[in-house]
């Protein structure tokens, strides 16, 4: 039978700034790799530039205008809705970690919060904000 992990006497782990130092090391190693490879390919690759070659690719026909043009407003709408929902998700992280200590009260309070969130979600769907033609 399934049983939940016993977390009643779990040691609270505290991270100190030293714990984050290896992440900086890893970023340095990754940055070194990226920059180093870029520089090496720049140096050893052939360079035979012609004006034709450096025009944007447009399936072989003459380039019409450029790509700094307006695009569908739907993408912007998705981005705004993402910000809204992602903030809600972040709010729920501390609650989820402490879920079992908060017990029944914590669950009911969070369900009310999620209910209001869901109302907004239903409103968005009813408004057809997420429908693509």
């Amino acid at each position, binding site marked *: 039978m399934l049983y939940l992990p016993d977390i009643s006497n779990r040691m609270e*782990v505290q991270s100190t700034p030293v714990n984050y130092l290896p992440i900086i090391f890893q970023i340095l*190693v*990754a940055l070194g790799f990226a920059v180093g490879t*870029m520089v090496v390919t720049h140096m050893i690759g052939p360079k035979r530039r012609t004006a034709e070659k*450096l025009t944007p*690719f447009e399936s072989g026909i003459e380039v019409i205008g450029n*790509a700094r043009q307006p695009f569908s407003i739907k993408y912007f709408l998705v981005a705004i809705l993402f910000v809204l929902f992602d903030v809600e998700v972040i709010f729920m992280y501390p609650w*989820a970690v402490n*879920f079992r200590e908060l017990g029944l009260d914590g*669950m009911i309070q969070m369900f009310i919060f999620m209910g209001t969130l869901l109302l907004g979600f239903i409103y968005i769907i009813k408004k057809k904000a997420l429908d693509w033609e």
Partner: protein
Amino acid sequence: MELAFVIEKFVLITVVFVLTLLVAMYSTLAERKIAGFLQDRVGPNRAGPFGILQPLADGAKMFFKEEIIPTESNRFLFIAGPSLAILTACIGSAVIPWGQKLTFGDYVVDLQVTDINVGILYIFGVVSLGVYGVMIGGWASNNKFSLMGAIRAASQNISYEIPMGLSIIALLMVTGTLSLKEISEQQSGFVNWNIWYQPLGFLIFLICAFAETNRTPFDLPECETELVGGYHTEYSSMKLGFYLFAEYINMFVSSAVMATLYFGGYNFPFMYDLGLSENWITIIGVIMLFAKIFFFIFFFMWVRWTIPRFRYDQLMNLGWKVLIPLAIANIVLTGIVITVKDLL
């Protein structure tokens, strides 16, 4: 802070980094081999026995190709895009516990680059940053196909980040911690694997992992039939290589995250009942973790050559109207089950 600590971490980071690059390199070969197998072909078999040197040949080719930066593009951002993509792909692996402790005499090495108590949030943050590489590169190209690919990628990645976050929340309610090390330790043995508590959560996470890594059936950002090459249409030489490589590294890291969160990480059945010494348990654990990771990578490829690509509206509908309600239902269900179990 002692010198030994710095050296230990740098050695560990280098080993992890080299392993990541090796796995990513050979994933490209594995992908072509598996595609060949599924389509009743042979796949690459000319460079070395069974094509084993193919990734090296491909890598060398990338170095010797001409670098093209279109005149109309924004030069700085054009170079920054792929660099950012590979950078974010490479730093995600810092918090994954690859194994338990290795003991050399009286020196103990922890097989994890760092154990921070916000491990999952760190990975979530790095994954969110990944979209910038694609977005910046696609916009800077000043090419209509690239722009379309980049907006699609951004829109898709942010849409699938929400159900991904929600599915992790249900997992956190079970584990009660954000540290990946602790999550691994809780799953010792076989019956404690989180997949048994969170099957629905895992399914949602898996689908989102496919979308976040831009793998088929969610590869609309680089959909050849509509957008030439998508966001990397204008890229050549190692910059193109970085984008393709970043995709394989992301696949490796997300496989490792899935194995750690849901499939017990380095734990394997009967690990303490076989009478093995601690170091042997650790070594077998690392091998088991990699076996799980390779299975997931194989699964990514299997799906790619089996399922056709979504249409864009289907993709958005799946993300917003199916996965988000499903993930919220999963949280509610998990909450009720845990509370009832704790009250009884």
